[in-house]
């Protein structure tokens, strides 16, 4: 220490005190050793992988930006986004239905969630894909009565729509439960206050309840989104050329299975990383009312979320 620290000793001979601004962080040699060990092991692992010829890094490099791979990647992202957006929207409707006083809406939502969570996504996708063998004609009709309009199933359910239906409807069941938990986490007094001020239930939901529910909805939704990125690889079974399908069709020609799978894995990791970062920002935005200590400046809303209508 450079300058002497004055220790104030009380006359009674009790414990002296120093101002806390003079405090130092404790030295913890154990932590430093642990850090070194972990870094060493990680570096060693990377080194081993990088030198292993079976991984075929030059092949990974050659195919990483291959047009077919990029097209598959784009399609995977497209499916993720559309599946998630539709799934969240339907999930919100289901969650509100489950929380409503209406017995019918409650029952319908409950059965939907029970069915779509209770069956494997892969099977659901295959069912959608093979819809035409079950129902050759789709028609809009009065129950048990005559049809008003009808379509050939094969013209409606293409592999693309089967993939979208399959992913979105399955996602909706999970999102419904996440959103329901979020809505229930908001103090009942909030909706009541909104109602006391004359807000309609819809307005209270959008302006008051959902923004507060977002705090507990966002983290599990991030999970779902990452799951969804990977779940899109299932559509390769119904002949949709997603990222996994693209690398598969390349290694079916070149037999470089591991390098091509590495291409896919690395791309999945890139997407996941981007999503994680975005999630961090979104979480911080929705935590804005909770920061007691920070300067009282209103947070900027990302893309107009939560702006007063």
């Amino acid at each position, binding site marked *: 220490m450079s300058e002497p620290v004055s220790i104030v000793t009380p006359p009674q001979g009790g414990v002296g005190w120093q101002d806390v601004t003079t405090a130092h962080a404790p030295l913890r040699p154990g932590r430093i050793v642990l850090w070194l060990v972990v870094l060493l092991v990680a570096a060693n692992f990377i080194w081993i992988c990088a030198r292993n010829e079976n991984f075929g890094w030059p092949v990974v490099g050659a195919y990483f930006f291959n047009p077919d791979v990029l097209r598959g990647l784009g399609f995977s992202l497209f499916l993720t986004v559309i599946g998630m957006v539709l799934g969240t929207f339907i999930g919100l409707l289901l969650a509100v239905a489950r929380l409503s006083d209406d017995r019918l809406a409650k029952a319908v939502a409950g059965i939907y969630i029970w069915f779509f969570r209770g069956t494997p996504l892969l099977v659901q996708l295959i069912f959608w894909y093979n819809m035409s063998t079950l129902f050759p004609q789709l028609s809009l009709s009065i129950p048990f009565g005559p049809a008003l309009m009808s379509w050939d199933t094969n013209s409606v359910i293409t592999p693309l729509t089967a993939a979208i239906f399959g992913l979105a409807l399955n996602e909706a069941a999970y999102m419904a439960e996440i959103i329901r938990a979020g809505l229930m986490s908001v103090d009942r007094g909030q909706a009541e206050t909104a109602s*006391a001020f004359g807000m309609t*239930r819809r307005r209270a939901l959008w302006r008051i309840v959902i923004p507060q529910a977002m705090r507990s909805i966002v983290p599990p939704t991030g999970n779902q989104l990452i799951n969804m990125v990977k779940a899109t690889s299932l559509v390769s079974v119904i002949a949709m050329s997603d990222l996994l399908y693209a690398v598969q069709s390349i290694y079916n020609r070149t037999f470089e299975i591991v390098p091509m799978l590495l291409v896919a894995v690395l791309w999945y990791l890139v997407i996941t990383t981007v999503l994680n970062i975005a999630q961090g920002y979104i979480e911080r935005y929705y935590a804005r009312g909770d920061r007691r200590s920070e300067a*009282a400046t209103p947070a900027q809303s990302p893309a107009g979320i939560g702006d007063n209508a």
Partner: protein
Amino acid sequence: MTAPRSISAAPLVEAHGVHKSFGDLHVLKGIDLNVAPGEVVVILGPSGSGKSTFLRCINNLESIDRGAVLVAGEQMGYRVHDGRLIKLSPDAAARQRRNIGMVFQQFNLYPHMTVLQNIIEAPIGIHGVPRAEATAYAHELLRRVGLTQKADAYPRQLSGGQQQRVAIARALAIRPQLMLFDEPTSALDPELVGEVLATMRDLARQGLTMIVVTHEIGFAKEAADRVIFMDGGHIVEQGPPGEILVNPQHPRTQAFLARFI
């Protein structure tokens, strides 16, 4: 007390034989009450006597089982069609109370909005006031409740007393014809009660119609035109504070007030 108010003929609030039960619990057992425009009514009574329930029945946050509640001549929660009484949908019922301000014991500010956003939410979203006008009025209200510096703070960054004053400003922002207060100071530390009561006394002096449930006898003494004593779901006794608080007739009122001396 200030100069006696000229109390006009048509009451702003009318309660006729209001009954309310929660399951087997009969909470309100026939409440009759008229409140004139500009009148300040303070409701006193022991815990569980049904004060909050009655207040919530006035703006129909709680539906009633028997009787009728009218605010500004409109029957709360119902409309009349071809001479028949028809229950309003939840959204129509909400619309019906948009001119009644309410202040809650637990403040119930919107925690995800700044103080300013809390105040302008209803004027802009429900009353269609232009944003600039709503914002200007919000700042004026914040000045009146003594919180000019806090417009951009979030509710959790404020003390309880400050939060309750924001809640009062938020209720005033809709330019209410009636204000309901449900124990606005009982969640506050004793040293913060004064600032909220001072704000409320100002409002009373300005001629706002107020119904206040409180345990603050001092406030009743100074600001009320009429004090109502409730017990066991009945109005036991009512009158000017000078009579009820000084010389209560009913033994229940006497026993209740004895605790505050």
